[in-house]
């Protein structure tokens, strides 16, 4: 392999300086002349019939400008996301507490908020559903279609009933997981600025500017070329800024269209909790069967997600969960049935892991229970059944050579001291209330959108080299804190042999690059990276040829090969810089700007039976967690996490480490603490006082290893990384708790109250 100058190096983040010095301009930091402010009027109850909306009292507020309702929508009142069931503003019925029913525009943000509180919604309460399992019952009231099912999938393979009958060992269990809130530092926000030609420019904090483009164009009834979306520096996403920023931006745009003035709409934390997307609560009943030799032969899964009031991304989240529901194992007989059920609660959508963590918690917990029943070490049991190159997944997809799962498990086993610690079993220290335990998990993760999202799985890039040799790159995927600007700049620098400092990747401008799909599914490095390479490759050809000619003209010995490294070209004792070469290219009037495009290869998955290639490529992880459980209080402290990942080539090791540590901590936080509570259809704790997330004081020690299994199709052999570290944490922690004290808790979060109850039940 050629020696790389920029890829594989821990180069400094492109956005580090503006962020640490506070100069980064987030949505709320932008100001425009004559700007007005919007605030949402929200439904107070889980399900209402809207009788009237009146601003009679609100209009007395000083600075009040206007009320915006569905009547002000010039386009179609349907947010164009997946199922198109979510109106921009409801006309007759609001389906969850917190849903935006109307908007108030005023001269200050405070006036808008005050006036919004005074808008009167006259309504009639309708019966509602807050439990997804009840929602699926035959005699439930119907709030969504004929059966309350937003979406449903299957994977059918082999003869499942027969295999269970023949199994020597069978385990079955019910598991559930609660919501997770993205807790991004920057709440949702957008500014819409009307343009003189009737168009609009929208500044949006978003992961997916092209979803915002779709929505704003639809709401305003404008052609796409009159709508421009500029992504602002985005203060965290984690999936929470995938779909819903399009709704927020559309609301701002409706207000701007009505008033003819720029309108800023920034969410407060409470309304962000109440109305923006969340990780779906999940429920699953899983059964595994193994033969007498400890070989997995059967798996049956019923998996239900609480979709909330509208579909949003539920179908795609559910599909990912469906495909991965049996775990990274070879199993001949599989039946997976999954449902996204409608409830009158906040619509759930994307969150790092996207439908996988919930079911992974269930199946990886149950794998431990099965190993225990067989009397095998849980790691040995996993090793025996694990997918390896050449094996087929439960959807019948053959795993290619970029699969290091078995090695990952081996690495984690060794580094964690698994065999010794596991052998010690329940390690009660004499006269101590604390017990330590260790737990394991293994996962796989389909990179990119896969078969269900294949129409969106393409990306564009524009690479432009200026006369002074500085390089500007436009892509359609976003920086949201994960490091995309940096990693993509490294890929551009590497391909062009341009100095890293001279490359700038810009935040997305929807008018500069074609629709590149969403920035989700750990796809940005892979998709935008490949698009950049495609754009940069012809430029590279010109630059390298010109460099060779310049060196030759300088009298270099051209019998020797030319070496391009770190922004310089050398041959036979002579050197020219990237700057000199590009200047010469410009002198020669060569084309110094190119577009690139990358479309993911085809997938063969069939929705009818869930068979075929689901994703183009998979990333892998293995986790071991060591915990200390306080036997008197049930409090679990995660002491250390050993993790190993195969995410292909690592473009920037320091950023990859950050992604890994952040993912582990976010996964641990979900596993142990995060508990969003609804009571009678109303969210009870929409704040960080009572919705508790891990702090750095809860941070475990990390031991992280990357095994770089090259992926031939990836940019410099990279796969995808963002979501992988979160997925396996919860089951590893749950398994460690069971190992420490025997308490098998089947509910996430693994609250002390639940662990304590299990311990008490075992004593009695």
């Amino acid at each position, binding site marked *: 392999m050629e020696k790389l100058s920029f890829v594989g190096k821990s180069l400094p983040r492109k956005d580090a300086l503006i962020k640490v010095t506070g100069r980064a301009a987030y949505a709320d930091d932008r100001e425009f002349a004559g700007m007005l402010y919007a605030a949402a009027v929200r439904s107070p109850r889980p399900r209402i019939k809207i009788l009237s909306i009146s601003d009679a009292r609100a209009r007395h507020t000083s600075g009040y400008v206007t009320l915006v309702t569905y009547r002000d929508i010039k386009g179609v009142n349907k947010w164009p996301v997946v199922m198109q069931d979510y109106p921009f503003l409801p006309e007759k019925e609001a389906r969850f507490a917190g849903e935006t029913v109307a908007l108030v525009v005023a001269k200050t943000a405070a006036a808008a908020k005050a006036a919004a509180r005074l808008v009167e919604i006259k309504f009639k309460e309708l019966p509602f559903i807050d439990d997804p399992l009840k929602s699926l019952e035959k005699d439930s009231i119907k709030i969504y279609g004929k059966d309350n099912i937003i979406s449903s999938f299957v994977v059918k393979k082999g003869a499942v009933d027969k295999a269970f009958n023949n199994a020597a060992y069978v385990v079955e269990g019910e598991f559930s997981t609660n919501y997770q809130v993205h807790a991004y530092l920057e709440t949702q926000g957008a500014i819409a600025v009307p343009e003189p030609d009737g168009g609009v420019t929208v500044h949006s904090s978003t992961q997916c500017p092209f979803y915002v483009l779709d929505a704003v164009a639809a709401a305003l009834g404008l052609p796409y070329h009159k709508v421009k979306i500029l992504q602002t520096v985005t203060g965290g996403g984690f999936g929470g800024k995938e779909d819903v920023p399009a709704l927020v931006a559309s609301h701002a745009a409706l207000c701007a269209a009505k008033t003819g003035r720029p309108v800023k709409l920034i969410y407060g934390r409470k309304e962000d909790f109440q109305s923006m997307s969340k990780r779906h609560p999940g429920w699953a009943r899983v059964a595994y069967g193994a033969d007498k030799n400890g070989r997995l032969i059967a798996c049956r899964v019923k998996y239900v997600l609480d979709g909330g009031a509208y579909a949003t991304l539920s179908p795609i989240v559910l599909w990912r969960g469906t495909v991965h529901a049996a775990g990274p194992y070879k199993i001949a007989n599989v039946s997976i049935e999954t449902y996204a059920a409608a409830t009158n609660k906040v619509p759930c959508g994307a969150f790092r892991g996207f439908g996988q963590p919930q079911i992974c918690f269930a199946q990886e917990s149950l794998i431990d229970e099965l190993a225990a029943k067989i009397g095998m070490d849980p790691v040995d049991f996993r090793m025996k059944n694990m997918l390896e190159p050449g094996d087929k997944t439960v959807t019948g997809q053959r795993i290619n050579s970029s699969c290091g799962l078995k090695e990952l498990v081996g690495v984690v086993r060794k580094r964690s001291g698994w065999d010794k610690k596991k052998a010690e079993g329940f390690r009660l220290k004499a006269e101590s209330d604390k017990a330590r335990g260790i737990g394991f998990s293994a996962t796989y993760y389909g990179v990119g959108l896969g078969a269900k999202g294949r129409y969106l799985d393409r990306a564009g890039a524009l690479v432009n080299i200026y006369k002074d040799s500085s390089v500007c790159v436009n892509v359609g995927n976003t920086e949201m804190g994960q490091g995309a600007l940096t990693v993509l700049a490294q890929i551009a620098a590497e391909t062009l042999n341009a100095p890293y400092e001279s490359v700038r990747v810009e935040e997305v401008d929807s008018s500069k690059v074609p629709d590149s799909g969403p920035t989700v599914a750990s796809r940005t490095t892979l998709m935008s990276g490949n698009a950049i390479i495609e754009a940069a490759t012809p430029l590279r050809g010109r630059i390298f040829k010109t460099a060779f000619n310049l060196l030759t003209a300088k009298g270099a010995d051209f019998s020797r090969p030319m070496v391009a490294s770190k922004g310089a070209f050398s041959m036979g004792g002579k050197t020219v810089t990237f700057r000199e070469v590009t200047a010469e290219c410009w002198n020669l009037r060569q084309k110094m700007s190119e577009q690139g495009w990358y479309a993911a290869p085809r997938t063969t998955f069939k929705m009818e039976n869930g068979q075929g290639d689901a994703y183009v490529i998979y990333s892998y992880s293995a986790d071991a967690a060591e915990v200390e459980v306080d036997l008197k*209080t049930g409090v679990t402290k995660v002491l250390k996490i050993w993790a190993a990942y195969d995410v292909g080539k690592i473009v920037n090791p320091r950023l990859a480490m950050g992604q890994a540590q952040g993912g582990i901590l976010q996964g641990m936080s979900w596993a142990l603490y995060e508990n969003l509570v609804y009571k009678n259809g109303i969210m009870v704790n929409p704040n960080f006082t009572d919705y508790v997330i891990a702090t750095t004081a809860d941070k475990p020690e990390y031991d992280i290893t990357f095994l770089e299994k090259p992926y031939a199709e990836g940019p410099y052999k990279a796969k995808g990384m963002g979501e992988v570290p979160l997925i396996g944490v919860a089951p590893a922690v749950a398994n460690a708790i069971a190992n420490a004290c025997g308490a098998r808790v089947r509910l996430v979060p693994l609250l002390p*109250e639940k662990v304590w109850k299990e311990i008490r039940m075992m004593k009695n």
Partner: protein
Amino acid sequence: MPKLIVKPSSLKELWKITPALPYKRKYLSGGTDLVNISNAGADDSDCWLDVSALTELWGIKETKSSIFIGAAVKISEIENSVTARRWLPALIAAIPHFASPSLRNMATLGGNAANASPCADGVCALISERASVWLELKGKKRKIPLTGLFLGPKKTALKKDELITGFEIPKWKHTAAYQKLGPRSYFGISKAAVAISADIKAGVAAKVSIALASVGPVIVYAAKTSAFLSGKSLVADVISEAAELVKTEVSPITDTRSEADYRREMCGVLVSRALQGLT
């Protein structure tokens, strides 16, 4: 936040201007509770009276028999006070569990008490130290036991416009422990917490006072358990008996933060750990 925030520079000025102010008014001290309540849309005051410039509410003073802590003293100031460290071991033990360093730089004991939360770490510790509270209304002062200030969650015995000016804690030789069970390692509201102050001589607890947070409508002073322990030597049997007894003195509820039966049991665990910490 109300449009009118008034910041008098002395108590005299406060009592002079108060009658002319809008009727719906509240005192603002560190603002760590009030500003949050206001941001959540749950405060309808027309006026806030900022008491942070009232010098009468400042300072930690020592007399022959008592320690006085002004109501406007920041928690971080107490944390660093030599006097507090010498005489108020329960409060000092509680402070690391009190919110976060940045909030402790703003928050005050007066605000902690006025907010009347059954979870208040500072109040819980002060009750175990047997504190009284000084109140003032239009120049008239009165002193009541701190336990008497609280009538229920967010409800106090304060009269309209009556102001907490400070806390008086008797000087008594004691050691103390603060045990808190929160939702995470650090920085959270307790599911249950206990403060124990005890004068221990040669292994015998001469005088014990136990207060518990988050397990009743107000901070609970565990009178029976305190009395039971007084005069006893803190051996294992006594400790476990006290841990059982304290469970009969609390009345926890199930809410988003925890569950009633768990909280009740935890009172026993925390009391026994706190007592073990004393010996």
